[in-house]
């Protein structure tokens, strides 16, 4: 009888903990890792956002700074317009799902960014046009490889799910334990070579949300970086739909 009970217990344990393990865990990590990563991933995400930012591109022999205003709606639509310096004033970028257009004010032309140019730099920065377009959602396209819990932060490594349409072979994210704000993310190629590092800092409250207001992208092995500082961000504001059309781009 005792033995029977024991067996039942084991069976019970297996049914409760064994079978649904796939649903409970995310890859090789505990279930809550997924929420943690998703929260960090969506730290800036809102139904709509609008704001102003300053981008500084540092290269060995030159540093260029530009200010811009941006509007976005969901992950689908985004419009960025350069306000400074005067040489670039009015130059705008519109993204609607997979498409990117530039508006060139000098010649008053709209230029669609062709697929062959998607890998090219966006406005001389270390971001590419693809970075604007790709809608990788970490919790959908990636699986957790390992998780290390530190005192103040949690480090999670992510690997893409088989056949996921993603660029990176591995992402290592460091997330602040207290509020799930990302601290850094390291991006590795599919051969496991570190390609670039993104660091997030200067956490401030903007429009009621705590967000990292500075984002720095450094290219591995080069003394180059692109820094984006959010000067002002507003979340969930009414943005007219026409902003995300060619009319809005040309405005």
């Amino acid at each position: 009888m005792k033995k029977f009970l024991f067996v039942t217990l084991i069976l019970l344990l297996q049914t409760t903990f064994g079978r649904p393990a796939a649903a409970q865990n995310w890859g090789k990590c505990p279930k809550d890792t997924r929420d943690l990563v998703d929260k960090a991933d969506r730290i800036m995400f809102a139904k709509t956002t609008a704001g102003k930012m300053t981008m500084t591109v540092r290269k060995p022999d030159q540093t260029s700074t530009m200010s811009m205003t941006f509007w976005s709606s969901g992950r689908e639509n985004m419009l960025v317009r350069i306000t400074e310096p005067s040489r670039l004033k009015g130059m705008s970028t519109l993204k609607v799902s997979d498409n990117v257009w530039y508006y060139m004010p000098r010649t008053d032309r709209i230029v669609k960014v062709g697929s062959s140019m998607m890998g090219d730099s966006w406005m001389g920065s270390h971001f590419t046009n693809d970075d604007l377009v790709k809608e990788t959602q970490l919790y959908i396209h990636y699986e957790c490889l390992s998780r290390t819990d530190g005192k103040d932060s949690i480090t999670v490594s992510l690997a893409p799910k088989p056949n996921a349409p993603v660029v990176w072979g591995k992402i290592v994210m460091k997330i602040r334990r207290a509020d799930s704000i990302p601290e850094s993310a390291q991006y590795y190629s599919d051969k496991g070579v570190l390609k670039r590092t993104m660091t997030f800092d200067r956490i401030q409250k903007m429009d009621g949300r705590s967000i990292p207001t500075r984002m720095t992208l450094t290219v591995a092995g080069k003394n180059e970086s692109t820094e984006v500082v959010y000067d002002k961000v507003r979340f969930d504001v009414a943005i007219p739909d026409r902003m995300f059309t060619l009319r809005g781009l040309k405005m």
Partner: protein
Amino acid sequence: MYNFLLLWKMAWRNLWRQRRRSLITVFAMSAGLALCIPTYGLMEGVSREMIRGITRSHLGHVQVHHPDYLEERRLELSFPEKEASLAVLADPAVIQAAPRVYTGGMVSSEHEFEVHVGTIGTHGGGLQSLVSGSLPLKKCTALVDERTAKRWRLDLGSILRFSPLPAEPACERVEISGVVRSDPAGASSLLMRPADIADLNAPPKAKSAAQTDPDDIDSLEKLAPAAPSADATPMLAPASDAAPDAAPAVDAAPAAPPPAAPSPSPATPADNPTTVVFRVVRTASSQVGIIAVDPSRESQVTTMVDKVVAGTYLNNTYRNGQGVPQILIGDQLARILMVKPGDRLGLDILTREGFPMDEMVEVAGMFNSGLDSMDRSLTFVHLRMAWDPELMNLVDPKTGAPQIHELAIRIKDSLDNVVVAERLQKRLKGLHLVAWPWQKVEPAMASMVKLQDASTAILLLIIFAIAALGTMNTMLMSVFERIREFGVLKSVGMRPFFVARLIMLETLLMTLVSMVVGGVLGLGISSYLYVYGLDMSSLLPEGFSYQGVVIDPVWRTVISVRSFAIPLALMSLVSLIVAVWPAVRAARIKPVEALRQTGV
């Protein structure tokens, strides 16, 4: 001394004794030489022509770069033009140095034309007249008639943009979903869904005063916190409904004058469902490589000017007349963009900092380099565009001194280029630049020339081998025929070495005669081929071209000291070598056995 003179006398007499055989040998050797000299000259001519084609098409004989430029091709790896040019042009071997700047960008052409926009049903046979594609089922898709599609190279998936952009919520752009048969009498037509057409025809609504300026981030109103949705898109639909100035309200007040903008032709009122004329823009664009050159210096180094098939090469002045810079494009690119010389293109050029700056440019001309990929994706502009602060701005960030990526150098003798490159390298040491011969810049081309030289060597070897075998044959024959004679010579006391020398000397005499005869004949053939050339165009009707290097189908010889010296030296060497064996045979003859034989 006595012996030596005797030897010469005997050799000379022996040759005349066997006049016919000697003549045959001399003839064989002369013929070999007469063939070898022009062959060598011809192959050297082709080789030089190849080098000329390679270096004069774009490379130049020597190139100067930043040490890392060729490997990384980054825009920042530039150097000051003035100092480098001065240092290079100071060398006496340099004819000219062409400065170049390489960047990338995009060229696009816009063609605006009128279309009669109608609903799907209004056109001819409707579904039956569909030639390809499918009916416009999605929003902002349209059918186009065959003639228009052909004229403007529209295909399934092509995009047409309305000009000017119609007011909301009408389509700004339509995607071509299918092609229909043309209406024989009708003009260009675009067939859209009734709903899309209604939007297009709606008069533009007046701007509501209440509308906030989206540029003013602070004044944007907060969304109602309701309707929480998980993600992405659902925002779109409710927002347009919620817009305070919804379309119907404006439609009710048609008094509002259409301000300047879209042009539903006044002849056709909006309620007429047949056709309305709209202007649409067809954009064709292509990503290109841009090379900024100094037109006058470039044309002294390379022959791109000769490859211009329509229009002209770039003007020497940067902004001529109306201030529109010129661009030279490949003929394939011109076909893609549907432009001809004199047309305007939009150019987005990558600046030193890496972002695009735009400028309208005028097509000066089109080139055909013979290399499709080049004709499709390469453009040339004036060097000053690269230094234009409004455009590429490739200047030293501190001093503002104009910079370049490359100096392509033409020197006096193309075969000297390795030496000249080394010399230039020394001159440029202080500027931290490298000067490479073209063989180092384009190793593939260099190995092509090497391959050509190797095949020349093999060809010459075969001709020499034939001539040499002939010589050896006649010499052996003459030894066998004269066994008795040698026997007598040896029995009267000639030493074997003397006999061997006799044979060698006979060969040498014949070789000398052949060299004179063959040399004269060779010179004659060479001169003929130098003047008239060897026309290979029947074998290579398309001309011979490799990697954009076009080689003239009429091959010409080069008459140089080398093209004579090498065949002549080789010929005499080979004849003497092959004479060794017969000479040894003759020396070894035993007098007793030889005398027993019944000679001729």
